[in-house]
């Protein structure tokens, strides 16, 4: 006899966690320019997943394909198990989007921005108003409820945009540079809220240029460059794998470079320093101090920024 549950068995390791986004050889071309070059990745339910990369890496384009507002030109992309080409409305119903640019509606107050946005989702008025009040409270904006947008500070606008993205109780939140241009206080507040959203079971996907933000928030991340994914993993694992635990920085002099060359360590040369990637900083420092004619030497823990610069290179991107 045919039984429905025979058709598909989910993997039986631990709790069953579905993939919210699955991209396979995803590609986006604008004419001859390949903005996203056949990337594959998947985002698991309940995690914070980051997209890092220099300007023009293809992060925002990838976000826009996930949001179903920019059609892909190749590969497959499924969100909540649905194809972005055929089910944009159903996908967008469960999506919250925080765009890079503030696009709040300046004709209306903070509160009205939320209720009008709720109407786009077809949320009934009473429910929309209740939810708008809750969200203003959640983002600590309840006192700004009746203010028009131009009277709000940059941090308040950003928080209001996040509140707006939550109006439809989305299962997946997409944030393109959520804390861009904000002061440290506002950034910490937003990080706290994003963590709280994750704790409630939401899945978050974000892009950011702030590597401390990525290291702090993301469970997993990818680093993109020129449309391709260079690496994928947790921030700690990436640091360990590509840099080591520590960095020893020495002033860049011909003597130091020659000396380090003979030490058999991995290092990188910047404008004014030599950066040595290592898991044994004490040994490296000692060798440097003993054997080389050195200038200033410092040791510090390795960070995601070291991975980022190592992988994407130091020349400026326009």
């Amino acid at each position, binding site marked *: 006899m045919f039984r429905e549950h025979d058709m598909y068995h989910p993997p039986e390791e631990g709790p069953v966690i579905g993939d919210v986004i699955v991209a396979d050889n995803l590609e986006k071309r*604008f004419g001859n320019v390949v903005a996203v070059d056949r990337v594959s990745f998947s985002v698991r339910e309940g995690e914070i997943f980051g997209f890092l990369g220099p300007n023009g890496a293809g992060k925002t384009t990838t976000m826009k394909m996930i*949001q179903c*507002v*920019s*059609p892909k030109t190749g590969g497959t992309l499924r969100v909540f198990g649905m194809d972005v*080409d*055929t089910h*944009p*409305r*159903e996908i*967008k*119903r469960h*999506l919250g*989007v925080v*765009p890079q*640019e503030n*696009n*709040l*509606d*300046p*004709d*209306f107050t903070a509160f*009205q921005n939320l209720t*009008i*946005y709720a*109407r*786009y*989702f*077809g949320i009934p008025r009473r429910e929309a108003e209740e939810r708008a009040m809750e969200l203003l409270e959640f983002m600590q904006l309840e006192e700004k409820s009746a203010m028009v947008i131009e009277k709000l500070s940059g941090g308040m606008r950003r928080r209001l945009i996040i509140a707006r993205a939550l109006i*439809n109780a989305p299962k997946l939140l997409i944030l393109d540079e959520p804390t861009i241009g904000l002061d440290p206080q506002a950034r910490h507040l937003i990080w706290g809220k994003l963590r709280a959203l994750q704790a409630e079971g939401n899945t978050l996907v974000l892009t950011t240029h702030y590597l401390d933000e990525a290291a702090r928030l993301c469970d997993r991340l990818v680093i993109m460059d020129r449309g391709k994914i260079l690496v994928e993993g947790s921030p700690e694992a990436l640091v360990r794998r590509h840099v080591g635990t520590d960095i020893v920085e020495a002033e860049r002099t011909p003597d130091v470079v020659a000396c380090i060359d003979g030490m058999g360590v991995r290092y990188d040369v910047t404008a004014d320093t030599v950066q040595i990637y290592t898991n044994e900083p004490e040994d490296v420092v000692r060798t440097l101090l003993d054997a080389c004619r050195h200038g200033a030497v410092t040791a510090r823990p390795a960070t995601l920024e070291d991975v980022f610069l190592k992988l994407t290179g130091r020349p400026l991107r326009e």
Partner: protein
Amino acid sequence: MGRFAAAGITCSVWRVWRRNWDAFVKTYQVNFIPPFVEPFLYLLALGFGLGTYIETIDGVSYPRFIAPALISVSVMYSAFFECTYSSFVRMYYRKTFDAIIATPIGIEEVIAGEILWGATRALIYAALMLPVLVAFGVVDLPVSVLVVPFAFLAGLLFASIGMCFTAITPSIDALNYPSFLFITPMFLFSGTFFPLSLLPPIVQYIALAVLPLTHVVSVNRAITLTAFSPILYFDLIWIGAVTLVLFLLSIRLMRRRLIA
């Protein structure tokens, strides 16, 4: 999906429309003044000022001759400018369209909602102007009430025209070209302030072929003077057909501009 411009349009268009209505109502004091003041000024200056030198046109007093033109021009301006400068500001500077298409609403519905709103604004202006014209005794009652629903159809036409230009304009300043080279000549040469028949025949044909306002003035004049003739069918079919084509074209052009 998506080959057809009109495919994927649902009742969500009214949510886009409603956003504009809400913004309009918030500033109603400013919005309601022009339709009252405009006919007043034109009737005094042209109708009763300049008009004293003109006895009648085809047996119609000059103020009665220009009254339907005033409504037609107001319909044209309100719908065209709403869907050019105002829509462009929402689309380009405020990114309102981007914000809306991040919800289940599609770009086709955003554009259709904007055009419906432009037509609604034309209807509101016509409805506000009508009492002023009635007070001056220059339009026939009760038949002139028909100019109000007709303003919506004519509004759709000018809103669609405006949206086509908005879709292709490189900047907000470039919208001055259609305003001065298309809308202003239409204001003058569409049988508005003097009969089309005064123009050389070739110019008349051109006006009828490419100046939408000629058809709108013709219909409105028939309504306010209670002078219906079979030529009205031609005007209405022309307006309906051109509106449909431009409505679909504007959605197509906008999708090309915004969905990359």
